[in-house]
């Protein structure tokens, strides 16, 4: 199948290879949580809620008493895909993504400032259309910022693939299921450090660099957008205060 039309240069959904889907971010969507956010990348829609820092519920889990414990739970809603999923949680994929998100967020949270406490991040996929991993990380970042948890930098994530000999930014579900390489990158934008890099396929080194470069560009664009959302939110809060 042609994922990039050779005559018009457009992808199946009308984007150019280096274009992202439409982004949408909103904070404060779950009233009970300490911080929450909704994040959309095209048709992928994710909600994140953050609880904490709070007292550790199960001391057995505590590894280092000088640092906060970060926990993360990823799950997909039964209705998030076309077919109804039977096991929304606890399968290998969910466990893996939970771990990935936790590790990525841990890298940016200043955990040493909050000893003997724990932070819970819940992410739920409402609608899946490729790139859920990235969308979850972006949503978690927004939610953590909303909760006021101290962070080194904003972590953002974006995926990029390589189909029809072209690096493609932000794969949607059709492109994702094409079986080509899918590079998911998470970076600390200001510090320019990579906190997440995943790929489960083979790519020659030079092409891989191009694809990763594209994904990093995507991350930076998302960071700019997230900052805007946060700034607007802060302004709104300022207004409310008077």
């Amino acid at each position, binding site marked *: 199948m042609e994922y990039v039309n*050779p005559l018009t240069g457009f992808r199946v959904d009308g984007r150019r290879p280096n274009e992202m889907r439409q982004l949408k971010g909103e904070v404060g969507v779950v009233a009970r949580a300490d911080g929450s956010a909704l994040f959309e990348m095209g048709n992928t829609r994710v909600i994140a809620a953050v609880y904490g820092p709070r007292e550790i519920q199960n001391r057995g889990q505590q590894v280092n008493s000088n640092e906060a414990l970060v926990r993360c739970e990823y799950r997909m809603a039964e209705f998030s895909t076309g077919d109804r999923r039977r096991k929304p949680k606890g399968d290998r994929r969910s466990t893996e993504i939970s771990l990935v998100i936790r590790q990525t967020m841990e890298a940016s949270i200043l955990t040493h400032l909050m000893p003997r406490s724990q932070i819970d991040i819940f992410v739920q996929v409402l609608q899946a259309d490729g790139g859920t991993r990235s969308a979850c990380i972006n949503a978690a970042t927004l939610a953590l910022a909303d909760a006021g948890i101290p962070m080194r930098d904003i972590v953002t994530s974006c995926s990029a693939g390589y189909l029809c000999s072209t690096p493609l930014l932000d794969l949607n579900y059709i492109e994702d299921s094409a079986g080509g390489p899918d590079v998911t990158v998470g970076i600390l934008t200001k510090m320019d450090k990579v906190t997440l890099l995943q790929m489960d396929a083979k790519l020659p080194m030079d092409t891989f660099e191009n694809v990763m470069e594209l994904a990093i560009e995507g991350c930076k664009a998302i960071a700019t957008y997230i900052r805007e959302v946060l700034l607007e939110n802060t302004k709104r809060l300022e207004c409310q205060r008077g």
Partner: protein
Amino acid sequence: MLQSKSFVKKTKQGRIQKVVREHYLRDDVYCGFVPCSACDAAAERKLDAAAAAILVVDTNVVLHQIDLLENPAIEDVVLLSVVLDEVKNKNLAVFNRIKALCTNKARRFYVFANEQHRDTYVKDMVGESSNDRNDRAIRVAACWYQSHLGESTKVLLITNDRDNKRKAIEEGLNAETVESYVRSLAQPGLLDLVVVPTSGDVTMEDAEDHRPSKKKVIYNEHKPMSEVTSGLRCGIYHQGKLRVNRYNPFEAYVGSESIGDEIVIHGRSNMNRAFDGDIVAVELLPQDQWHESKSFIADDDEEEEDVHLAPNSADDAPRNTSSTQSTVGSSAPSVSSRPIGRVVGIIKRNWNSYCGSLEPMPMPAGSRGVAHALFVSKDRRIPKIRIQTRQLENLVNKRIIVAVDSWDVLSRYPSGHYVRTIGDIGDKETETEVVLIENDINTRPFSTQVLACLPPLPWTLSLEDLSNPNRQDLRHVRVFSVDPPGCRDIDDALHCTLLPNGNFEVGVHIADVTNFVHPGTPLDEEAAQRGTSVYLVGQRIDMLPKPLTEDVCSLRADVERLAFSVIWEMTPDADIISTRYTKSVIKSCAAMSYVEAQARMDDSRLVDPLTVDLRNLNSLAKIMRQRRCERGALTLASAEVKFEIDSETHDPLDIGMYQIREANQMIEEFMLAANISVAEKILKYFPLCSLLRRHPSPTKEMLEPLLRTASSVGLNLDVSSSKALAESLDNAKSNDPYFNKLIRILATRCMTQAVYFCSGDLTFSEYYHYGLAASLYTHFTSPIRRYADVVVHRLLAAALDIAKLPPIFQDGPQLTGIADNLNYRHRNAQMASRASVELHTLIYFRTRPTDTEARIVKVKANGFIVFVPKFGIEGPIYLTPRGDKGGDWVVDEVHQRVTKPGTNISYAVLQTVRIHMEVVEPQPHRPKLQLTLI
């Protein structure tokens, strides 16, 4: 950037699923009109300001009138993405042609992504069919163009759909049919390219031909697709590819997987308008109609009849040849074991353009008007095609190309249209071109982009190459090459040195083509597409440009050349002790022909080092050959002939069998060994993406004709394995010296072709090469003339860590695609060489009627097929006069013998007969070689 969502419902494995996809609409899709100021200045522009009109074409125009669009008279065409998508779904071949037009810089064809444009995207309306929706999208886009470009530029919608045209005019657009537009261009030649619509889309201008009372349905209506699919599912119908008998176009076979046997189809009416190569659905006839009909050789002129050029006249009915065939000739029609069926539907058409000529006919009185003519394809499997032309006088006695458009139930022949003229019939150049076109061989000169990839000429060895640590300097080694006389593209050379320990160092040096052909360059793409060089009689069509083929890569004598070498250490008993692969620099000391090399080896007075090397190699080769045969390699034979060509007229002067000497076999042996060594190496490093060559073992059914022939002459062949077959072929001796060769030729014909494949696609046991009895084989030794070898060179270089593996090897389907293309090209190249030999044979015998000896290879009811060993010709001989269906002769299938009852005249297979060969011209400009019994 605006966004909208399109909702599509889609079934997947029977389940209904709702799929939601995003669809981004944009404002940065530009019109491509050169003087347009509203669009972004940097955007690509193709549509010329001076154009009389900007043409917007609809899907059916592209699908049916592609020959017209390819004509340079049609320019400034806008192709909408909705049209391209539809074309792609309906006919991939046409899509590739239109794609080539759009990417061609010289043509002004612009692709407008109307589905992505904010103003031209149309939403599906409730209750609207997708056809109507697409038509509407086309009209909306045309409207947008008109308003975007303003009144000064005319935008013309070209459509043959009456409804669409009416709506377009209602919406204030300019719309015309193809025919009226072409008429307005006032180029009469162009009108021949226009496909005349057969359905009621447009009122036919030749309405006076319309004689409804005389219309008669000749063929059965094809079953609707839904019925065909359900019939296939419940097993009433059988699907398969239709193959028409080469000798008898009224007989066809459909290989069906559901039955596991071939279904025979007799007669044009049972074939029901299917062409050779079509995928068809077949219904079996009741078993009592499964008559074993005699296999006839249909004469060329069997189809000769009064030509009724007015279409759809009643007397156009196909005579059912099968019914007469099955009753006459055999007193009691036996019920055959082979199923017989008829075509009920065509699943996929294999319509193409065909080369041929018009059937001779009296010139109509008013030569300026539209004339109907019947086109006879050179390929006998294709039925005659009815065409309309306005330039009849220019087309008679020419070779022309015609494309098929439709085949109506009311019409005996399919209708098509003229595409282009090649040249005069019988002219050598024309006929050679026909051969090339028929085999899809690209003879165009290499493009400037391709030539730009060549190294600067004249090329000499640079210091850089010498200082390359991966390249070994072997210039001091006595390397030489042995090739056919007059060979300019020398891609292999050898050396053989005696080592102090009594062993031999044997090296095979292959031209280092990949040093000049880099992956991904236009040169590489062109070579990949051509796949192989094609050798015709007195002509060569190169895969790589001439400077590479004949000079830079060619391992000529006394010049320094780059090579890729395989070097073995061998004991005098030809056991390989070690194998080494390296890139190298060599300097060949002699480029010999086979004859020269053989003469040197045979001349016992010569003891110079080169001759000694040759003798050493030859003795090693003999041992290797012996060992290979013991393993079960087959020595097959084919009837290769050689022409001596007049240097002035390029006409053949003499013809004879190609003689195989020991020197040929010596070179062959080392090339085989090199190929096997390389195959082992690359497969070890790249088990999933190596390009190898395999030769599938023939099945019992395929060897059946060979066994039958052999048993009729009292020979028992053991075909249980290649080794057994090789042995029984060796034992097939009689007092007739040619007998063994003949049996080998027949055996060769029963084999399948060896094919290239990608190692990841098959399991190890399937890699086997039957003919060579080798578990692994590939092609490494001729990179100048075969692209497969170029691929293998890259793999080997990557395996040696000299070069990086190009990314294409990571892509399994693409690699498989390359292998498939190579197989296709290879087969076509072989067919073309064979056809070229046939053509030259014809030219040779035109002035030289000859009497010679021939061998019968196949027996039929009204004659037999003979093979002339001296000239490598095969052809039919008729025992009965034309038209007579062979009532006098009785065929004995078991003994492969045809006898005349009451007399003792009989002919059996493999029998020697004296024949007379002569070129006759039953019709002017249609020469053919006729064989008659003396």
